């Protein structure tokens, strides 16, 4: 029976087809649509009118940008993202390190404790957090508290995304490096800064981009936790689309995209020469 079955000849290239199609339909095409809307008017002609509106409400001056609400929204998002990422990193690194280095047999159980919250729908979690903030009495109390609550929500939401990649890199660091360092007289702290930290850089970078980028756009958190009093870039785009201003919305989406490209590039996301260094320690 089996002998008669025609043999399937797979080349490795063929295996890339599904992903190629996925890439084309869900990345390239939408991107082209966004670019198209950003630089055309309703008649479908090339136009920079909507680019102007990005810089000021009336579209008459580029210099008004620095006093415009779009600028304030972008700066606010940037601040929230940076703060959330920094706090996530400060919390996640020690946690990942401790779990990775723990002598416990069931480390994965420890890790699980941090991952389990991810299994609960995040809108539910954010709603629960809202109730908690209301109970404590800092919910929508002032603008300062609102920013604080947004950052808190982002950290709460994205912390596992920071812990996981760092944990995976640390656990894969060859212990003999550390032993060698100790043999050569390095203190624990020195061994950490000279070996563990540099070798876990890939995890940090990955974690940073996993937290920084979504926290620019995840407006569910800012909306729920501040009674829509804190507006971030993601919400801005949504507002434009809901207001039937697709061209404005597309241009901001494009700006955001370029921005994210920049961040990915800066965190080394596109570097090919790191392959050897991170082989076996890559994640996701």
């Amino acid at each position, binding site marked *: 029976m089996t002998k008669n079955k025609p043999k399937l000849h797979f080349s490795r290239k063929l295996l890339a087809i599904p992903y190629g199609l996925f890439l084309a339909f869900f*990345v390239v095409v939408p991107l082209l649509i966004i670019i198209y809307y950003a630089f055309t008017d309703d008649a479908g002609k090339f136009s920079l009118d909507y680019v102007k509106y990005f810089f000021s409400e009336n579209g008459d001056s580029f210099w008004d940008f620095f006093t415009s609400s779009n600028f304030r929204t972008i700066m606010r998002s940037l601040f929230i993202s940076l703060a959330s990422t920094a706090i996530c990193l400060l919390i996640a690194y020690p946690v990942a390190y401790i779990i990775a280095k723990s002598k416990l047999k069931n480390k994965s159980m420890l890790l699980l404790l941090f991952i389990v919250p991810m299994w609960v729908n995040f809108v539910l979690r954010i709603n629960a957090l809202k109730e908690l903030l209301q109970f404590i009495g800092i919910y929508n109390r002032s603008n300062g508290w609102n920013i604080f609550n947004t950052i808190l929500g982002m950290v709460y939401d994205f912390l596992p995304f920071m812990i996981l990649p760092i944990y995976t890199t640390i656990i894969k660091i060859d212990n003999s490096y550390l032993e060698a360092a100790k043999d050569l007289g390095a203190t624990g702290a020195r061994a950490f800064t000279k070996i563990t930290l540099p070798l876990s850089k890939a995890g940090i970078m990955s974690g940073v981009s996993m937290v920084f980028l979504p926290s620019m756009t995840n407006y569910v958190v800012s909306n729920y936790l501040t009674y829509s009093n804190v507006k971030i870039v993601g919400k801005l785009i949504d507002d434009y689309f809901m*207001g039937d201003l697709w061209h404005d919305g597309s241009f901001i989406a494009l700006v955001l995209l370029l921005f994210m490209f920049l961040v990915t590039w800066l965190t080394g996301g596109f570097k090919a020469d790191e392959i050897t260094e991170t082989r076996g320690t890559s994640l996701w």
Partner: protein
Amino acid sequence: MKKKFSAALGICLLLCSSSFTACNLPGLGSFNENVLRVASWDEYIDMGGEVYADEDAEDFIAWYYETFGIELNENTKPLYEEFVDWYHREYKDKEGYKEDFEKVEYVALQDNETMYNKIKMGDQYDLLCPSEYMAIKLKNEGRLQAYSADFFEKSNPLNYYAQNLSPYVDSVLSNPNVGLKEYLAGYMWGTTGFVFNPDKIGKTKEESREIMSSWHCMTTSECARKITAKDNARDSYFMGLGMYYEETLLALDKNATNYASELARLMNDTTPQTVNGVRECLRDMRENIYGLETDEAKTDMIMGWLDASYQWSGDAVFILDEAESESNLELEYSIPSSASNIWFDGWVMMDGADEHISTAFINFLSLPQNVVRNMYYIGYTSCMAGNEVYQYADYSYGDENGDAEYSLSYFFGEEYAPLTVSSNQLRRQLFAQYPDEETTKRLVVMKPFEHEDNERVNRMWINIK
């Protein structure tokens, strides 16, 4: 390679998340011969089942059985499913009967704008239930199909819609200014106004009522950080117009022949100069209020965490009911004394729809027993009048020992006697469901903004909020 892959994946995820959250694009559908495709914003048809298993429903179920002789329980099917049997029973042997008609596909969309975006992307439905402004917009873009004269013919025994439509709603819908006469079959209607706690705004209840009868309550110190506005450009702009034009509106002569048209003109004004004036009003409002919301304020009002909120009347009724039962709060509903909004949600046929089945469906929904079921389930006020609907209002709000009379003859017809109710209902649920005739005179239909005005208003609002 792996790095590249993860970078590409990262960007891809971001793209997906930003584009999907921004415009929400599930699969598109198209017309189907034996299926009636129906969409509304929000869940807008009685879904049966659980709602009738609830203890709170017992009283209603008993009244319903007494009135219609029909039993409701947890096995009651959604109305749109019941339609199929009804259709085959009632329309058999009638002209145009479709033997192969199978089912109704019903979709509840998030809001009018989502509905519009889906249609713009090519989604097709036989029947849509947008709000009036979206219906006008769709009509102006040539996406709708008019009902034939037969549908409005009262003499046809199956035309329940034509027979039961309230004379008041009919007069508003027939207004050539609105321009929806042959295109829209009214479904639910209501006003916008303020739900508030009279004990928490001013020093006395009277003072609170006084404050809440003006659009300027949004900017007064009494309401500072106690009140919410709606997170959308239309409602906020309307509110801004109310503040901007309040003195002008109050100075109008209510008995003048051009009062209605003047009211409509002012409350639909989108000239650049007015937009600039409204911007200042809304900016003051934005600094004064507790926040913008789409749905959250309902819970907050019910729990007593919030003291006032700008709401649609249907939601106001829900809030008033729940606040009373959950938190023992006696909230009130007010409609600003200068002018306010009257809104409609109604059935329109998309161009290319199956008119026969579509109109049969609307007639089915207009049967008194179904009107009442929908009103109970949704909590909004139906555009349908008729004896049983009047009885339902009496059942809901009537009070034999009441100290006030409330006339609804403008809505149901001259032959209907005033309801005897307790006087607090004149400021509460009954007033929210059926405003009195005097109030209806200052209600304005808010038309969709013309293209350029829409951009101007939306940009202004997005920049302020």
